[in-house]
């Protein structure tokens, strides 16, 4: 069940009406929990058992850690919890990847290890990070364990963010769950507007651009260098609108139900450095990597060289988190190097700079964008040979000839993207439509009808669902 489907619309209306009709917060939480498990099981009912198992184990580990009197016992429980979570993630997501990589090495010895037929549970990476942050926070004393198992279960399974985040911080979100749940028209009206914004990003921008991006990435050898550049730019917009659109919808749905989910994007493509980009892109993942990986590795506390190295390691693992492929590792590695180089630059040169000129700002933006675009090639391409060919074609290192396809979808969607980002920033500032006025209702119905009329023939699945 995806947010942009009729099934979800029906599901959500039923949940919302139940939440309005029922007074008891405990029953509301129970309804939300059941609805969340139903939402997850809609893909494959077996996934919900795995989620339940992860919830049970981590809740138990959290309780045990909190009850532990000494550090050693706490360490043991934390290690057990982390190993369990990583083992689940590793088995479902990376087992075949490692076997495949091993087989490449073993090829010389005529040995081939068999691959397992494993279904990747949807959103497993997000769930794993969420439960890990819960037990690590308890270990660090930042947070206490949930008041009840059901609250923790709802934190993990809460359907608006379940599949593709944002990764919620238990410290922030547990209090939201534990408080009284009240459905207010004000919130429903606001949530509806954010949801619609997300739907526009997804249906009108991302899905339309996918029609251009997919064929070019499928057979880049057929297309000219110019077209490949355009397709890469289109992909950059597509992935942003796809993921940000999903996040908007998640925030909107949560808001309707009376929950505040933090934003995950902040106009990332205006960044003037890779460091800034990661402050604006997938903010919940960046924060998670910083809080639970970078700081755990020592952060900036062990000297400059170690700090640069930590940045590289964090991004390498961040890349691998996205998917079991060397392309993702390379993508993460390139970002890690760029972060380290930028940090180095800021440490030695940048700190002496006065107020930067417009030209300097433009150059840093352009350089950042080129880097981001090139690295998206590795993120999107199916394998290394495709990404390598595309990068070579982009920089005219190989035959640049091919079909010149100046996809109109790109020129049509860019203005819509700018309007969406503007509307998004206005909504964040608290400016919203009054859905009791004619103007507010007109705009809402105009957008809703626009979604119906402008939806492309073949909707694409959400990109981040695979992670």
């Amino acid at each position, binding site marked *: 069940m995806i947010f942009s489907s009729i099934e979800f619309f029906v599901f959500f209306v039923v949940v919302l009406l139940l939440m309005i009709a029922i007074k008891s917060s405990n029953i509301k939480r129970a309804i939300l929990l059941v609805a969340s498990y139903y939402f997850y099981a809609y893909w494959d009912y077996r996934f919900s058992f795995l989620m339940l198992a992860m919830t049970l184990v981590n809740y138990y580990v959290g309780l045990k850690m909190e009850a532990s009197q000494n550090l050693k016992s706490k360490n043991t429980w934390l290690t057990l919890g982390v190993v369990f979570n990583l083992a689940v993630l590793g088995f479902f997501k990376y087992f075949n990847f490692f076997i495949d990589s091993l087989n490449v090495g073993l090829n010389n010895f005529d040995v081939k290890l068999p691959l397992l037929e494993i279904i990747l549970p949807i959103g497993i990476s997000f769930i794993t990070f969420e439960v890990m942050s819960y037990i690590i926070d308890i270990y660090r004393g930042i947070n206490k364990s949930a008041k009840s198992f059901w609250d923790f279960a709802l934190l993990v399974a809460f359907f608006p963010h379940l599949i593709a985040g944002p990764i919620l911080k238990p410290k922030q979100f547990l209090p939201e769950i534990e408080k009284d749940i009240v459905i207010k*028209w004000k919130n429903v009206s606001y949530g509806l507007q954010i949801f619609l914004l997300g739907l526009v990003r997804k249906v009108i921008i991302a899905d339309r651009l996918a029609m251009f991006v997919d064929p070019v990435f499928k057979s880049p050898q057929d297309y000219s260098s110019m077209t490949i550049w355009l397709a890469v730019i289109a992909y950059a917009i597509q992935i942003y609108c796809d993921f940000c659109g999903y996040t908007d919808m998640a925030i909107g749905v949560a808001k309707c139900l009376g929950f505040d989910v933090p934003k995950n994007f902040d106009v990332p493509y205006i960044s003037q450095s890779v460091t800034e980009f990661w402050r604006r892109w997938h903010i919940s993942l960046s924060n998670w990597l910083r809080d639970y990986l970078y700081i755990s590795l020592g952060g900036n506390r062990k000297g400059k060289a170690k700090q640069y190295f930590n940045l590289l390691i964090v991004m390498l693992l961040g890349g691998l988190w996205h998917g079991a492929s060397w392309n993702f590792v390379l993508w993460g590695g390139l970002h890690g190097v760029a972060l380290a180089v930028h940090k180095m630059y800021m440490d030695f040169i940048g700190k002496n700079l006065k107020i930067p000129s417009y030209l300097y700002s433009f150059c840093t933006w352009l350089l950042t964008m080129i880097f981001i675009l090139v690295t998206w090639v590795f993120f999107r391409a199916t394998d290394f040979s495709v990404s390598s060919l595309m990068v070579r074609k982009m920089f005219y290192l190989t035959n640049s000839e*091919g079909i010149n396809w100046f996809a109109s979808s790109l020129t049509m969607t860019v203005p819509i993207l700018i309007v969406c980002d503007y509307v998004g920033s206005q909504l964040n500032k608290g400016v919203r439509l009054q859905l009791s006025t*004619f103007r507010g209702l007109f705009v809402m119905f105009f957008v809703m009808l626009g979604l*119906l009329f402008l939806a492309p023939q073949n909707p694409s699945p959400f990109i981040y669902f695979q992670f």
Partner: protein
Amino acid sequence: MIQKILDRNYVLSSSLGNFFKNHSQKEKNSKKQLVFKCFGAILSALVVWELILENTMEKSPGSITHPVLGKIAKPGINVQGEEGFSKTKINDLGMRGENILPKPKNKYRILAFGDSYTRALQVADNKTYSYLLQEALKNKYKFDIETINAGRDGASPAYYIHLASFYNSLIEPNSVIIQVTDQDFTEDILNKNKEFYVAKDGNSWQTKKNETSLSDDALSQIFLVKFPQLRFMLEYSVLRVGGKNLQKLLGTKENKLSLPGADSSQKKKSPDLSRYDAVIDWTVENIKNKYPKVVILYLPDYNNVNQSSSQIENALNKYTAKHKVDFVNMREDFINYYQINRQRVHGFNNTVPGTGHVNEVGNSLTAERLAVIFETRILK
């Protein structure tokens, strides 16, 4: 127990009531006003979208029933293809372009028949192969040559054969181009759901008109059959575009909405391969007998442009030679052009290159080849 249920219902209704009541009180609007505003807002949004769709992206302009030609595009309106960006006007006969005037004495008229590839709504009026051919011949011979684009979406040779006397008397062509594709023979010509089709008649074949054929579009079918009094609503773009998209969104299968009693399997059923030869032989012979100076133009579609010759193509080659009809096959031209220029002859900037209808390049190549045939075989 009953008391409990009543209590529960009271709590439920009062909760719902409070939810909406609070809202309406805050906004100081009565429920009636809100409903009225909602209705007005929806209506206004629909009007604005109607204007936008009509002027930018309308894809199905509606149709009328012509006493002879059957269901044709509505005359006088501007239409736009789903692919490409061109717009064109529909004339009184449902063809693209201006109305056809009586033929002056010294005018040489070429009538171009075909399906959507000839109609070519995807390219501008001055980029269709029929227009480019006219201009090429005009420049070469310096006399009054006119090509008439009689392309019709979904048409097959059954249409041109069945309507030959109508076209000959009205348009008086000096020469005729019949554009065909594989699909004309594999899916359309024998399809009884089409408006004109070919059926077995003893040892020979005969064209027939299907008087009950209404529309290929399931939504329009529903309106036309179940609510004929509401058929005027099909005039509105918002209904047609929105209806189609809604059908898609709801995952409605075409079959579920097809006419009662219609045999949907017939549409998909491929005809017996052995029948191709006989039908093609009969088609070529009939076209030659019914029209003057015929050129048969074969356009490979994007799915098979890079493959070797199709069975239909081979049969066309064989029977055009047998009946001494000029035959133009664009396969090699399309492939050669791609190999030299790395540009596809199918597809547009708003579709996937290499897919869909023939683009400007393909139309231009076709016109060049036809011009050669006309210069060397027909006009010399």
